[in-house]
């Protein structure tokens, strides 16, 4: 298939950036979206142009490194799919595709489609852990966990930290990411002692990073490749309120 790409090019944080149009030919429907970009980049290198910078690593939908806005949708229109797992068979021959980076103030563009998501790490630093030193843990069977709780905790824990939720949110909120993390630990007995202080610290950090507030538009879950549900946000808010009431 043959495609026309409109790609956001920005040489660095201080560059204004602009859309540039490229033609790609002989795209196989079995290619992943990133492989299609690889093919274009090979051509650009040989022509002496700067290839398009984009983040990726595992190419298996699990590391959370890839991410771009494709035709206005974070990770593209296919549901519950990371960009690296999106395949060209979902596009029509001759299509025009617009590709942009995540856009949110706390995610500054580094180059082209690469953005800086280190704000997420700082939210974790604020309290997204259980304080347990290595070597002092009790036998794993000493704390049983109901299967239902373990399963729900797992569902929340599958967040890959890609940032699509932020990119999709009209307020630039990081609520879905933060809520997924808080929910994971608050559903397990191990997470109880620090439950409220954790929720408070992480939400406060999220605000401090400049992420917007949540107004329940639900755009985040619609693009989330791991299907993190909106009710994690309710869980987060409830823990946060309790923490502040204390």
């Amino acid at each position: 298939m043959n495609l026309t790409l409109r790609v956001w090019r920005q040489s660095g944080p201080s560059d204004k950036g602009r859309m540039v149009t490229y033609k790609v030919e002989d795209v196989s429907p079995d290619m992943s979206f990133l492989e299609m970009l690889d093919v274009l980049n090979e051509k650009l290198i040989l022509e002496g142009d700067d290839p398009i910078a984009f983040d990726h690593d595992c190419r298996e939908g699990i590391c959370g490194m890839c991410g771009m806005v494709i035709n206005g949708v974070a990770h593209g229109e296919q549901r519950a799919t990371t960009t690296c797992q999106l395949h060209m068979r979902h596009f029509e021959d001759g299509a025009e595709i617009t590709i942009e980076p995540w856009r949110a103030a706390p995610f500054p563009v580094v180059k082209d489609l690469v953005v800086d998501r280190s704000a997420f790490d700082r939210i974790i630093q604020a309290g997204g852990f259980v304080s347990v030193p290595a070597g002092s843990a009790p036998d794993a069977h000493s704390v049983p966990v109901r299967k239902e709780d373990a399963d729900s905790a797992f569902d929340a824990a599958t967040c890959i930290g890609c940032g699509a939720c932020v990119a999709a949110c009209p307020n630039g909120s990081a609520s879905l990411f933060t809520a997924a993390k808080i929910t994971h630990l608050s559903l397990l007995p191990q997470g109880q002692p620090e439950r409220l202080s954790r929720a408070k610290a992480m939400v406060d950090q999220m605000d401090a990073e400049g992420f917007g507030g949540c107004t329940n538009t639900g755009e985040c879950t619609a693009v989330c490749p791991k299907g993190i549900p909106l009710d994690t946000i309710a869980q987060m808010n409830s823990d946060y309120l309790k923490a502040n009431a204390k």
Partner: protein
Amino acid sequence: MKYTEGPEIRDTKAPEGPIEERWEKRKFGAKLVNPANKRKLNVIVVGTGLAGGSAAATLGELGYNVKSFCYQDSPRRAHSIAAQGGINAAKNYRGDGDSIYRLFYDTVKGGDFRARESNVYRLAQVSVNIIDQAVAQGVPFAREYGGLLDTRSFGGAQVSRTFYARGQTGQQLLLGAYQALERQVAAGTVEMHTRHEMLDLIVSDGRARGVIVRDMVTGEIERHLADAVVLATGGYGNVFFLSTNAKGCNTTAIWRAHERGAYFANPCYTQIHPTCIPVSGEYQSKLTLMSESLRNDGRVWVPLRKNDERAPGDIPEDERDYYLERIYPSFGNLVPRDIASRAAKNVCDEGRGVGPGGLGVYLDFRDAINRLGRDAVEKKYGNLFEMYERITGENPYDVPMRIYPAVHYTMGGLWVDYDLQSTIPGLFVIGEANFSDHGANRLGASALMQGLADGYFVLPTTIGDYLANGPYGDVDEEAVAEAEIKVRNKIDRLLSVNGTRTPDSFHRELGKLMWDYCGMERTEESLRKALERIPELREEFWQNVKVSGTAEELNQVLEKAGRVADFFDLAELMCLDALVRTESCGGHFRAESQDADGEALRDDENFAHVSAWEHSTDGPVLHKEALEYEYVKMTQRSYK
């Protein structure tokens, strides 16, 4: 390629005495560092996967001053995140006869008697603590209705000792380690440097004292000094270009350390994973693993007839060859990876492979669906089936999956002693980057175990023994400057070639060569060919590669080119190592060395040793470390 033989390695620092007591003995013998001194001791940990993440977190928590580096934008994205199937531990929660001894026994045997007994025993001992540690961190392992942890059996094992978190065990374990790491960052004991690539090791007065890194955003070359350096930079399977590894996985850190004096052990041991999605085209950038747990319920087969073009559903039962069940009746579809991989290759070589190019075999869930019901199968494997469909466009509930072996894991790596210290004092190597615990073949669910054992439990003890003699004083300024200049020169050289081929095109060609000549099957002839061809290709690379952009910006082409350059040198050593080892063992199958049934034929008389290669300008020097088996009798492996 010429090589010479150097003196044997005699001391691995493993304590003597009964194997159950060795680790206790070593721990007791290790010097302790006074808590007030820990703050004055600096440690660099390169890599934030399971090994590096857990090590940096633990060292920070112990009170050392830690600097941690990774090339991704967040430590949470290290390649460990992709591990699917699970992690072994000798908990015997099932009461099915498992024990530390049995895990030890299975691992030594599974490694085809090319791993060290002392190390493996310790690994099995520590495995128990890993699960406790992970659970305490909130890792959501699968559970039974009674609230206790669930386990499953995994390739090569007859007991149910594998703990798992759906198909995403690596992710959950890594998040546990990452969270522990970020806790230390917040506490100020660990300083995290993301998007930084280590490009050289600083050795001063014979000791590892720091690293030269490139800030991948600004291009700045930085020097970081410490009292000890830990490399946890993962495996080098990407030398084959196509592999199940993340795209960024590379050999650069360990290769540069090798050039500075660290021995490289058993480079030729590559694990080929039997259940990957077959290659679909020339543009393909990587291969995707389908978890081996699928072999618990899926049955592997090919048509009995050659070039059978019928759809799988049209091939009647008596015209199918369930070859693993036929050849290995007691293990069937659960034979270890090296055996399953080669069996698949053999049936495809016979012309009975399926799918495009005949490079594939069926992994069929029809019987499991009939037996357990579609729902039960979906519950167990749903996400894997979905992943398969996403990539291939075929629905595995209706048609059997097609799978083919692919490069997955490298058992070779920098040589380390029992303390996980390399031949450069002060340089410790953990996780997939070292060679130590797996022998010639790694069993499923044991890499995660090793990474975390090294990082949480082993290294934090053994490095203390080294650091107790620190701080190590000033670093030789000349050594630092020399390393920095070397790095700059390499970058300048790459940028100045300005040829007509991209780094990726060289990498693809090198990878194909390695797969064809040093892949699932090697012969003297193929290896000699590779050793002839690699230097030619490397020469062409340095004459004709095209690296666009500059050094002072985010430049992904430059990053790639640097990694490919190191892969060339590594590839050569891999082929040499494979050539010298004229036996078959585990993932190393020399066609000249097989028995009448076509099974790998080991030669214990001549090759019961680790091959540890020293870098030298006159060509590599081979040092042998003899392997002794006091507890597990060396026998030919049989899974029949």
